[in-house]
């Protein structure tokens, strides 16, 4: 079985700034991998590099057997939609949403493959099964939702297609602890089958014991790896 994601010698950054330094990473089918690290150490940039959204990048990124990494010097986002169509679902950090679209239109916009578009009704039902509070809000513009509801929409949108790799960038950022835990639990409960999920998080306690692996990131490099039995020392 091929790896879902295989990164070799990836460097990426913006202008003169180099954020990711010669990074190697492999993610296998069915795996749920957490990546932890402080702000500004490259977690989001790593996700952006996978999606082709950084200022420049070089190195090899193979998604599901297809090369999606290119040496690029400009034009962030030029190939993003093609990479996404290869089977990447991005649940971005913060509010990368369409303010004026309703929740329903938002979920529809996530169903970009012809097959997903045809079966979008069932897919929406599946998302509503995971995020029940959205059912009442289907006709509400997303700009009027609370932070937690927006995050649910953003994650639900990622679930509208059959992606090979789900990238969840700090899904609990800025949410009240209780809502953050609920969102994380929903993410961890998704049946991956042969796809994989890659979650960036600062709150290690939310991930420990619940993902297959946790990787640390520091100064643009991967530092240390822990298996699922990982326990944070001193946590209760």
């Amino acid at each position, binding site marked *: 079985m091929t790896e879902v994601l295989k990164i070799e010698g990836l460097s990426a950054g913006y202008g003169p700034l180099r954020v990711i330094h010669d990074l190697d990473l492999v993610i296998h089918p069915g795996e749920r991998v957490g990546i932890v690290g402080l702000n500004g150490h490259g977690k989001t940039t790593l996700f952006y590099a996978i999606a082709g*959204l950084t200022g420049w990048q070089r190195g090899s990124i193979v998604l599901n057997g297809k090369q999606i990494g290119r040496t690029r010097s400009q034009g962030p*986002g030029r190939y993003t*939609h093609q990479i996404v169509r290869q089977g990447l679902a991005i649940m971005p950090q913060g509010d990368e949403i369409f303010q*004026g*679209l309703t929740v329903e*239109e938002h979920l529809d*916009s996530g169903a970009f493959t012809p097959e997903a578009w045809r079966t979008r009704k069932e897919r929406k039902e599946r998302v509503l099964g995971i995020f029940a509070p959205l059912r009442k809000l289907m006709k509400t513009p997303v700009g009027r939702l609370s932070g937690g509801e927006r995050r649910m929409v953003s994650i639900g949108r990622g679930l509208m297609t059959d992606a090979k790799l789900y990238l969840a960038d700090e899904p609990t950022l800025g949410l009240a602890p209780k809502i953050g835990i609920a969102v994380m639990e929903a993410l961890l409960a998704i049946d991956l089958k042969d796809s994989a999920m890659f979650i960036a998080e600062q709150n290690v306690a939310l991930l420990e014991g619940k993902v297959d692996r946790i990787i640390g990131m520091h100064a643009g490099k991967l530092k240390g790896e822990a298996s699922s039995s990982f326990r944070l020392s001193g946590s209760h």
Partner: protein
Amino acid sequence: MDIAFVIVNAVTVAAIYGLIAIAVSITWSSLGLINLAYGFIFSFAGYAAWLMAGRMPTNPYLIAGTGIIAGGIAGIIVCLLVFIPLHDKPAFTSRGMIATLAISLIGSQLFLMIFGPTSKSLPDLFGRWKVKLFDITLTADKIGIVVCSIAMLIGVVLWMRSSRRGLEIRAMMMNPHAASIVGIGIRRTGLYVMGLTGAMAGLASVLLSQTYYIAPFSGLTPLIKGVSIALCGGLGSVQGAVIAAILLGLVEALTNKFLGGQYVLMTQFLFIILVLVVRPRGISGLVDIAREQ
């Protein structure tokens, strides 16, 4: 000359310039491009309709259809020449403005070379009948212009609301970055947007030729008015553009009546400046929901 006549004129003018303003507005908010090439698109569609009228002078549907399709083709040409090569380069907004303005100017000169300076006119598309409503006499061309513009506008709005491509365009209008994340291709959407807005300008061109002539430079006035109405309404807002078009149409008709036609541009720009002083984002701030945080 009474007040009813003024209002009828205002609505007719508003319908034509409103189409262009909405086209400018949609292009700006989805592609980030202020398209100044509508002058070229306008003349292109006008001449195409005129060529068709030379062959089939009696079929108004064919003439209007040719104008609309030619406008769409001209929009796609502009997209291929400007948007696709430039959209991810630095300073795209100003480069795009300069490039589209260049297309407008070069296009006008080309039309001057090919068709000569003589103006052309289209046959009456809507016939020569009249309707008396209360005390106002409505001529066929006025009714036709308003009905066609409103039908086109409703069609565009419905298509944007219901179809998948429309959803993609609206998504891109609100957040281009997030749009690429959900797999919406910016260059392909650019082709749809500019084809659609070009077709709107094409219809406006055919409609305006019921009142004015088609000439190499006939696209410049509609371009200036369309862009200024779009600015006044608030770039990016369809409702704002409609309101601004009606208000500016009213200003034009009232100026024509009380001051004379030579003052129209003066009063219009005074009005736009006044609106932008009070509401720097244009009128749309009044009606758009969930626009900003």
